């Protein structure tokens, strides 16, 4: 007989015991461990999801802040740029003004120097002309320049033109003192003074008092100034003169013109 009832019953009991023991020592612990691990993984996944969500929020916040910083940076840059432009414009303007001022100053100095030079030139020229003329007259005509000037002046007094005569006749006569000044760059000899006084009293004012005066800044010549009293501004408004002033002024004007042209060409 292949089936032994005793063995069958014993094996059934053995099997049931094995089921109970394996349930106790195998299935339950393993199932619990797997369940615990599963729950742990789920918790970790949930935590990871939460952290990911937080990280996403942090990322958004960070990006927003970064954008704000970028915008602020751009605004600052723009502002700084504008300030730099303004400062640049201001400094340029200031530099231009300073340059303009320096140039004006330089021009003024130049102009002053030019005037000074021309003035000096004119004085030197006048003196030189006077010296040369004097010497030429002395050498060629055996004549004195001052004497010639006085003679010419007296001659001009005797030969006044109509306009001058009209001016003298219409000028108001001051009362009581009518003083006529004779300004010269040199000392007039007494003989010539008498002739001058005579000519004045004949041609201009019979009762006028004639005063002679030497003027240092006169280059070479003689001049009649008709005025009420010495130092008074209320003169009668005319003068009769013969000297190098007129020629030298013309020379000064021509020289200044030439210098201006040279300056402009150089600039």
């Amino acid at each position, binding site marked *: 007989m292949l089936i032994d009832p005793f*063995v069958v019953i014993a094996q059934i009991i053995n099997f049931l015991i094995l089921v109970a023991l394996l349930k106790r020592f195998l299935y339950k612990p393993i199932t619990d461990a797997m369940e615990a691990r599963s729950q742990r993984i789920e918790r970790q996944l949930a935590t990871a999801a939460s952290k990911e969500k937080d990280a996403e929020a942090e990322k958004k916040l960070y990006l927003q802040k970064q954008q704000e910083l970028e915008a602020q940076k751009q605004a600052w840059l723009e502002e700084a740029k504008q300030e730099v432009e303004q400062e640049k414009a201001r400094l340029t303007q200031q530099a231009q003004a300073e340059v303009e001022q320096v140039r004006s100053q330089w021009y003024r100095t130049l102009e002053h120097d030019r005037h000074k030079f021309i003035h000096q030139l004119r004085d030197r020229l006048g003196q030189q002309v006077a010296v040369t003329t004097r010497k030429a007259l002395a050498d060629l005509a055996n004549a004195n320049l001052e004497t010639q000037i006085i003679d010419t002046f007296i001659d001009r007094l005797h030969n006044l033109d109509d306009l001058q005569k009209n001016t003298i006749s219409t000028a108001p006569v001051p009362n009581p003192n009518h003083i006529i000044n004779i300004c010269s760059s040199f000392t007039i000899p007494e003989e010539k003074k008498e002739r001058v006084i005579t000519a004045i009293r004949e041609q201009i004012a019979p009762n006028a008092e004639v005063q002679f005066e030497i003027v240092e800044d006169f280059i070479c010549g003689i001049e009649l100034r008709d005025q009420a009293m010495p130092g008074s501004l209320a003169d009668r408004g005319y003068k009769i003169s013969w000297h190098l002033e007129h020629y030298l002024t013309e020379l000064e004007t021509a020289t200044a013109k030439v210098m201006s042209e040279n300056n402009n060409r150089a600039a």
Partner: protein
Amino acid sequence: MNLTPDQTIFQQIGIIPINATLVFTWLIMVLLILGSWLITRKLSASTKISRGQNLLEVLVLGIKTQIEEVSQQKPEPYLPFIGTLFIFIAFSNLLSIIPGYQPPTGSLSTTAALAICVFFAVPLYGIRKQGLWGYFKQYYLQPTPFMLPFNLIGRFSNIISLSVRLFGNVMSGTMIVAILLSIAPLFFPIIMQAMGLLTGLIQAYIFAILAMVFIAAATSNT
């Protein structure tokens, strides 16, 4: 040469014969329980686990998956019974590679005992799931009450086929190896032993799956 390990009696205690079937069954039980206890006494719930725990988890998870696929139900209620069937049969078959060992599944008494367990487990699970009448109506009166005798014969034949199939396969494998050892002692027995390992595992799988199919048929609502 004995046809069944029942005939190999180690000791006779009164009327109780301590034969190879019982001894090797106890040996397997001790090995399984001791091994399980050794491994499961320090389980880890973390992702870093020992090799033994990994082996047991793979084993238990595989059985649960198979139960779920066959029954289309939650595997937990059936795991201890079906799992123990599979592990016991597979272990007793795999140990046949050890010289001198006689697999308990090579005893018709053992396979009959296991089949009887299945025979009683089916109504127990069915009644627990659907109630007595629900189980009876579903399992014995389908498709019509007139089929009751045939259903009863079918249930008994299931038990017989289960037990005889397992016994026949294991016993024949052992016998073939024994015969080949006497005819061609080199190489062929080794090949047959290897084949025996495969057959043993397949038989364990078939036994457990069929038991689950019977239980599932009794517990399913359709």
